[in-house]
């Protein structure tokens, strides 16, 4: 117990972040699995119903249960963010590993291309993809996934560059290990602390990006809910039913807070 206390004092961000994220995940999972309501079921009599035992957070403008919708919306947003990060992380690690490990002309070309992509604001770039391929949940994931690749590639490349001439790599090479084995078995695990903390920060950006795109009406399509989509719907009722926007906004804010504390903590640990 003493150890835990010390650890918390030493790195409060990590534990606060983990706690907030865990609570949010718990809310989202319990709401998605255990809510008795279909998040899309409408009911004219429950239009903007006040919070009650039946509807803990009340209902929205179509009489849909807000708690059920916030949970499923949060789940959609998390799913989009997770898949986005998985996709961009995978591609980023592969590109970063090869360019960082081998260097040379290919590295130069790929990294200049990388810089060019990085120069665009990510939302703008995602907008271009959406306008080309159409909107929808999967297209949002793919376009955000592509947009997020360069930042990961750059971080992974830096780490590989740092590690490629370290002693353990050299000895592995002397023992006859192949390049691929050295890259992914020897170097990669040593880059994980840095990569993981940047993945968590990237995750945050992905949550915000999804919310912004859905808010702008080009992300998740109705009636499917996502936090950004709900915030955009709630905006019309900002003055008459402020609680709708407050719940949705707080949900986004808490998710982001939790994960960015977690990211900071991981960085500190690294």
């Amino acid at each position, binding site marked *: 117990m003493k150890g835990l206390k010390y650890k918390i004092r030493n790195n409060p961000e990590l534990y606060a972040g983990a706690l907030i994220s865990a609570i949010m995940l718990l809310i989202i999972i319990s709401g998605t699995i255990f809510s008795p309501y279909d998040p*899309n079921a409408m009911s*004219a009599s429950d239009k903007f119903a006040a919070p009650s035992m039946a509807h803990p957070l009340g209902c929205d*403008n*179509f009489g849909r249960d807000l708690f059920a919708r916030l949970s499923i919306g949060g789940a959609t947003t998390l799913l989009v963010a997770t898949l986005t990060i998985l996709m961009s992380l995978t591609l980023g690690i592969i590109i970063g590993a090869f360019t960082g490990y081998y260097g040379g002309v290919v590295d130069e070309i790929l990294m200049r291309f990388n810089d060019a992509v990085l120069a665009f604001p990510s939302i703008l770039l995602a907008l271009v993809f959406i306008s080309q391929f159409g909107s929808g949940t999967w297209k949002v994931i793919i376009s955000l996934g592509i947009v997020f690749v360069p930042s990961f590639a750059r971080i992974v490349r830096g780490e590989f560059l740092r590690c490629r001439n370290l002693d353990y790599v050299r000895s592995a090479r002397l023992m006859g290990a192949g390049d691929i084995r050295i890259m992914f078995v020897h170097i990669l695990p040593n880059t994980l602390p840095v990569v993981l903390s940047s993945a968590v920060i990237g995750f945050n950006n992905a949550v915000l990006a999804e919310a912004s795109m859905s808010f702008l*009406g080009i992300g998740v399509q*109705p009636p499917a809910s996502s936090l950004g989509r709900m915030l955009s719907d709630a905006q*019309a009722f*900002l003055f008459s039913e402020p609680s709708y926007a407050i719940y949705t906004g707080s949900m986004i804010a808490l998710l982001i807070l939790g994960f960015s504390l977690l990211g900071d903590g991981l960085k500190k640990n690294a």
Partner: protein
Amino acid sequence: MSRKRLTAVLCAAMTAAAALTGCSGGKPDASSKIVVGIPQDLEDSLDPHEAVAAGTKEILFNIYEGLLKPDETGELIPAVAKEYSVSDDGLTYSFILRDAVKFHNGNPVTAEDVKYSIEKSAGMTGGQSLISAFSNIKEVNIRDDRTVDIILNEPDIDFPAYIATVNAAVIPKDNDNPSASPVGTGPYMYVSRSPQENIVLRRFDEYWGDPAYIENVTLKIIPSADSIVMNLNGGSVDMFARLTSTQTQQLSEDFNVLEGEMNLVQAVYLNHAVEPFDNVDVCRALSYAVDVDNILELTSDGKGFPVGSSMFPAFRKYYVDLSDSYPTDPDKARELLAQAGYPDGFSFSITVPSNYQPHIEAAQVVAEQLKKVGVNAEIKLVEWNTWLSDVYSGRDYEATLIGVDASSLTATAMLDRFRSDASNNFTNYSNKDYDELYSKLYLTSSEEERTEIYMELQKNLADNAANIYIQDMAEFVALSDKYEGYVFYPLYVQDFAKIRLKDN
């Protein structure tokens, strides 16, 4: 009729009463002003013969007039013309000009100006005409300095309705650039325009008819729907038309909310060229599955006017109430689907333009209702330009939820598009009986017979469930309680001349 109608009628009655009694001998208010919010700048053109956007034309209505113009009941009343007559063969329309009509630049309106305007509007002097019916004009002749004859190739009983649109307005012949310096004969004259900011109008004191009450009208452009309520409540705008019921609920007590109709037919328009909408049973099944009252309740607090065919109530004499053709009946819907070979339902997509929030909301409710009969409707939001090119022009869609309005006060404006070979038949509706009935319109010139045919055409659309008809949407106008006299038209028009200060 409903209470909505009554409000509109009351408004009209109040205006009439005030015009007769109040306003101290018809003297307009001196140095009075009103700021009216509009959702977009008048970017297309201030030249009446080139203005295409409904939002532009509704403003130009105050600056320009045609030989005739519509009044608030939808009747055509003489404007620049004093009266007109039609020859027995229906080919020659003779318009006798009013004597005291002056342009805003002070010059009187001559027969030359009228001939020039009609020819320019019809595209006879080069350029394109925005009124396709004007291709029927053979020639425009000046009989004497007060009489102009318009000769047609074929009789067209709707011709006066086209003459009354803003696109056929009378403008001076010597104005080289009507778009930059608009000069008309309307109750308001153009003063200035700051792009993306405002348009300023001033009362035309030498107007031939009842002068406007308010002297200065400023049109303030508020492109963001979210800031409309803030602008109204903050006092920077006195009036805004076409609000949603949600927006009106957030207004302060300083505003009166007037309720009318948008004069359009909101429906899920089905593409009859694609499966399964080529099967009439499927279309009927979907009409049975959709609960219009529930849509109104969820999207507009129950306000709106259910319709059952492609005609809205403002058409009065042509309108048949067919809104009860398909009472909500999910069992019957399932039965019809099974009969059509879809016992387990099917999936399709509803394309909705992303800038029309009311349509997006209605689409969500429709999708939810269709789920109950096993039909899975996926909503596809597209930009307005994509909608125009893919859905309207390209006809590449399955279903779309949109409002269709009438470009002129003629029944054909609503019904023509369902002829199988009509160029604007974006639903690919193809029905032999409909085409046959429609062709009969050309054979008769009796107004009663034509009205009868119009009604039959509406019934044909309803019987075959050409589209899933929803409603003529409720329209809300917020007017500061300092003013009164707002008048609803059965057309897309804002008439500022009838608005006046309340006398306390």
